[in-house]
């Protein structure tokens, strides 16, 4: 079962674990909405070190409003940034 549904509010974990990870710093700590569920993929944090990448991780496209990311953002207030984030980097807003 996927942890999140489309439309759920999520916050990106703030972390800088040793080694390889695919969650850029600029998006960490920001709050967005699950835009789509991309499927389950091998975990790049394991693949990078010669492991088989299992267990698979669900990957989500998460949508953020640009104005929530950059205080001085100029443009349409509906402008968005969409980014692909693995499940273990996301916390439900309600989970705190």
């Amino acid at each position, binding site marked *: 079962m996927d942890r999140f549904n489309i439309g759920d509010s999520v916050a990106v974990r703030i972390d800088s674990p040793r080694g390889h990870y695919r969650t*850029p710093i600029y998006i960490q700590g920001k709050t967005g909405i699950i835009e789509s569920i991309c499927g389950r993929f091998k975990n*790049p944090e394991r693949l990078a070190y010669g492991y088989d990448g299992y267990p698979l991780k669900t990957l989500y496209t998460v949508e953020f409003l640009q104005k929530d990311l950059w205080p001085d953002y100029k443009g349409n207030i509906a402008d968005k940034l*969409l980014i692909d984030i693995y499940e273990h980097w996301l916390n439900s807003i309600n989970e705190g």
Partner: protein
Amino acid sequence: MSNEQQVNHGDHDSESEIQPSYYASRAKAIEALLVQKGVMTTNEINSEVNAMDSKSPADGAKIVALAWLDDSFKTKLLANASEALEEIGYKLPDETPYLKVVENSEDIHHVVVCTLCSCYPRMLLGRPPDWYKSLAYRSRVVVSPREVMEEFGLRLSDDIEVRVLDSTADLRYMVIPRRPLGTDGFDQESLAALVTRDSMIGVSDPLSAHF
């Protein structure tokens, strides 16, 4: 980082050939190790290189043109790109990352980046352009997408919603740009000729019909 290696140090190099760059030497060394350790053969490496070089933006352009002409193909392409491509006889290589196609419209404009490295729909567009891999593009297009697109010559009205797609993981994105006006009656080939690489990344529009 590599500049120092490329500088010709005057007399020292006067008799030798041009030295390969730092990255070229490093790639050669890694390749030699992979072969030596039996991870892959030289033939396998060459066939990968050939496969990558056989793809170019012309492949993507044909698909965009078909999507402009055939609504039901476009719908399938947006829903499940690899299936839609397979139906028209275009088999993506195995082990290829998942391809997602998005469409620009009069209301929404997509532009693609990989802030972490240089993820790119190579299976359709070939190798990414150098600017796509540059730190300047990768860092600026997420913060100021409208300004960056304007530098590419694309000025978007404030009414249009801009969506920056940061392909950080297992998805690769290709954009179907807006079909240029005045192209009614164009066939797939003449439409494809208007579809530029940059328009499929989203930093510019396709060529106009009367350029």
